[in-house]
């Protein structure tokens, strides 16, 4: 009996889907970083902490998805 819970093609689809979500989160973080930098350089420091928290949430989601990938 095979030890693999998914077929090879299923695994590829799952990994591809996870990669897509990770990429979208990365793009979101990049936008967040540029917007925060622009605001900070203009003297607006009110959004730096909320932006850091949002970026941290994105990072946690990415790490969680990576752990799921590793545990499979």
């Amino acid at each position, binding site marked *: *009996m*095979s030890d*693999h819970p998914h*077929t*090879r*093609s299923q*695994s*590829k689809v799952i*990994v*591809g889907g*996870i*990669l897509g979500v*990770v*990429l979208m*989160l*990365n793009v979101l*973080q*990049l936008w*967040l*970083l540029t917007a*925060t*930098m*622009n*605001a*900070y*350089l*203009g*003297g*607006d*420091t009110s959004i*730096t*902490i909320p*932006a*850091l928290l949002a*970026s*941290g949430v*994105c*990072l946690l989601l*990415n*790490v969680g*998805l*990576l752990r799921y*990938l590793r545990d499979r």
Partner: protein
Amino acid sequence: MQRHDHEFESVPPDGRPDAAQPRWRRDFPIDWPKDELIARRDFTRFMVLTSLGFTVGQGWIALQSLLGHPSATAKPIVAVEGIPVGGSLTFDFPHEHDNCVLVRRGRNDFVAYSQKCTHLSCPVQPRPKEGTLHCPCHNGTFDLADGRPLGGPPRRPLPIIELEVRDGIVYATGVKERTS
């Protein structure tokens, strides 16, 4: 007895049977599907590392904002008679390497801005006759009246240097940064 799993056989990229493959591929078979799977996993790990980098960048900005800027003390720049109408002068404020430009637009009309272009920090040059400040690096233009960008790549207005005229001397008293 292990069942032979055809999923995990080597699959040539062109899909032709083994007998039709070139000799070198028959001699050195590579598990292409597994290779693709591993490559995607490695790329995902790399993207998570990039995500960490972005978060570190956000943390750095947050730290800088918490540390704050030291407050500026009033500094004399020039005597009112020392700058003609339509003339300009560069000075440092609030610190040594914070280049600024002062322009006398009218008899009692003085404006001053940070000289660093908000695009890529090139020094902007005043053009009082045109009523603009011009950045020669990428042809950025700012309105001399309020420092807002008029054209070119800059998106943020120039920081305003707050001025006071006391006893015939023009003083710089503060910096006002803006996002729009």
